[in-house]
């Protein structure tokens, strides 16, 4: 298998990685960079546990993405959401609304929420539910997660939406 040298920006920090060309972004983040806040839930793009944000906007399943495809891109994981020791409003909303039970889907859910709100700051409930499809939660029945997205949408300002993107200027 061929290797390739790539540069990834994760949570505002640059990493140079020598990866096999078939290595997934999930493997590169979890196994090579030890960024274990990104979760392996199914490995086939069905659960959304490995969701990360690209360029502060697009949410992708890192298990279905090759690391080499992300050359030069800015990636945000849940570990990159806090600012100066403060929780991001999305994180706070997940706590306040009781949207967290076992917490295993939470990293993916928070990143998916950041993507939903980056594209549509004031989504309707239906738009939120449609947006969350692809991220599975087996604990909450989704209700409190939907509420958390609504709460985050209410309290977030434009600057916060940008901030969710990690490395954006």
């Amino acid at each position, binding site marked *: 298998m061929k290797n390739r040298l790539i540069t990834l920006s994760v949570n505002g920090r640059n990493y140079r990685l020598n990866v096999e060309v078939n290595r997934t972004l999930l493997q590169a983040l979890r196994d090579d960079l030890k960024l274990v806040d990104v979760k392996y*839930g199914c490995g*086939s793009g069905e659960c959304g546990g490995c969701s990360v944000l690209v360029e502060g906007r697009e949410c992708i399943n890192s298990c279905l993405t090759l690391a080499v495809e992300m050359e030069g891109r800015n990636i945000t994981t849940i570990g990159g959401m806090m600012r100066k020791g403060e929780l991001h409003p999305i994180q706070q909303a997940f706590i306040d609304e*009781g949207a967290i039970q076992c*917490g*295993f889907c*939470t990293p993916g859910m928070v990143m998916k929420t950041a993507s939903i709100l980056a594209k549509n700051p004031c989504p309707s409930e239906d738009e939120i539910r*449609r947006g969350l499809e692809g991220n*599975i939660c087996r604990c909450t*029945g989704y209700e409190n997660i939907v509420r958390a997205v609504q709460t985050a949408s209410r309290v977030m300002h434009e600057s916060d939406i940008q901030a969710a993107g990690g490395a954006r200027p």
Partner: protein
Amino acid sequence: MSEMTYIGKSVPKVDAREKVTGQVIYAAEVHLPNMLYGKIVRCWEHSHARVTHLDLSEAAKVPGVVKVLGPGDVTRKLYNTGVLDLMVPEDMGKHLLGDIEDQRIFTDHVRHQGDAICGIIAESEEIAEQAARKVIALYEPLPVYLTAAESSQPGAFQFDERKPGNMAFQLPEQMFPNNAYGWGDVDAEMATADLIIEDTFYVPKVKQCQLEPHAYVAFYDQSGRLNCWTSTQMPKCVHNKLARLFELPISRVNLVSTTIGGGFGGRLGMVFEPETCAMAMAVPGHPVKVQSAREEDWVASESRHPGKYRLKMGFKNDGTPVAADAHFTSDAGAYFSHSSGVPFTAGSWLTGMYKYNAVRYKGDCYYTNQAPSGAFRGYGNPQTNFVLEQIVDQACLKLNIDPVEWRKRWHKQVGDDGWCIGFPYSSCSLDECLDRGAEAIGWKEKRARYATQSGTKRRGIGVSVMNHTSGAMPMLLEHTTCTVKMNEDASAVITIACSDLGQGSHTVLKQIAAETLGMPMEEIHLLVNMDAAGFDIGSHASRTTYVGGGAVLKACEDVKRQLIGRASTRLGIPVEELEIRDRHVVSKNKPRRPEGAIEDAADHLRNNVWGVGASMSIKEICNVGVYHFVNPMNGEANGIPGQIQGYASYFPSHNSPPFGACFAEVEVDIETGQVQVLELVMAHDIGRAINPKAVAGQLVGGSHQALGMALTEEIHYNAKGLCLTNSFTDYKMFGPLDMPKVTTILVENPDPVAPYGLKSVGEAGPVNPVGATANAISNALGIMFTEAPITPEKILLAIAAQGLA
């Protein structure tokens, strides 16, 4: 009770911040120096076969492979991943219930797809997987049985010589004559019935689908201790089971309970801990990590018991349920596991629900070549709910009785026999649940409106009630040990073995501790450490808040007793005249603090409002207990020596069963068979909600699993016994768009015998939405569905065969 500070408050989960920042450690995140990677090699191509030839030589040659392990390279001891043997006396488990150990770490007799045949230990996960593909296994296929009906046939291959006819379990004759329990003369009562409703139902094999795949690290270290990091729901039971399996004293097994990424019964007992630990034992000094793939969860771990459930009920014209006669024949799957537990317990929810004149329940199960059945949130209750609640509604329809009114008239009440016969209900607020739930969903109005409909979309509304338990006593052992250590600054460390599956048990245990000790939650640490903590049976049977909370309460009361005792000695005031208030032991006879002066309590003390000399701060008592100096000038010691530690080894005296009423409204498209659930109302008899938001979260989250069982979820196998639904695409759970609005109503009438009056909620959610949804569909179409899940195909076939009402 209005003065309570923490009980009844929806404080945020104590681990929420760690979880929302991605900093919690699930087992898969454990990374140790010199760590190796283990791969459990499974049989994927057969569900029943003999391994005739196993060649590991090519796998061993792969560079980076450290060791290959066949069945003979690890312990050949038999075990049972279930934990029933630790919950009942040996006489009962082994001899009466017939519990057996029938699993091996690596087998040469594959009994289900995914059975483990050997193991690989390598320097990386990728190398281990590469080597696994080089394992050469030849098989002699054996006949495949997918249902009890097939495996119970005469002449069928015998799974285990100890279980003739492949009958893994039936209710034991010695305990229950004719292998049935209940009361009264069912045949005589049935003969008096004006109406008999009888049908045979099928309940599906559904999966817990906890989001975290099973992962472990095990490490046989140089001190001779076996360490295991696992997200088990039952750390103490697994601790004990691993010690037994590897023939070590419990003190030489260090079981580390990591954050649990969902359980729902899927981690009740051992899962892949035996394989992981066996690999670690083979490479002493090297930790071994096993990260299982999602696919392995479907084929090699346990699910809810599927099977056939026959129920015949007789009624008088006035609705009197004269008799109920039930028989649940379930599929055990490939191994014994919970074979005695679920078929036994499923009937308890039936006998515990209504005041039948006579009732008879038979429960049994048979080996098949499906993945083993085991524990899943509700433990037999969702199965019974689907059957019992539909039969009741059919009777109500024929007798022209309102289903809500029938249930109010005939459900069991306080003092009636509980789910365990001979053990009466301590409280029951089901009438209030039914009344408030009916009002919230608009029962009467909608029931009348949906009686006459036309068009392609038909609406229906249904109700279902349930009873459950708070802990499994008196049937199973209930015991939790707790210690509360008071630090010298009066902060506290609670040591306990209770696990938190995400439901928030650690949060509510801390709330109970903070309330009882009268101190802030922020100054209490909850330590979950299996070396330090005493016994706890584990998170199952909706018991952790009830029994774990009871243990915390008792241990905190022990601390209070010690504090008051010491203050009494120092102050010269009898203990009866002292109480703890605002972190001081104070005399009850001194003026109480003025209303609304909580914030200024310390000031009041300083200002002598409550009298100097009649109080001692808890901090002072704790500090002096640790720093017990002797004055060199006069040789006098200050205060009373000894660090304060509270202790409780708690066996609850009851099981304070909760009740619940669920109402469901559905819309059925009669052209496509599609069911849309419009709304659920769940009214739950919680006794007292320690954390109302967490309670509601349990109901809503549980309803998601119930709706799946009722409408979409089922594990399918092909004729060879190979799993067809081993992914989240093929196994359909409700998504965010499918979930209806769920209204929760917490009915709070404190239970008289429970700690703080609380009753359980953990297993309530997945139970009665099953029956309520089925009844709503039946209400919409006039057709009762006997097979779950009620899929569009079944609906269209039924409409075609029976026509609409």
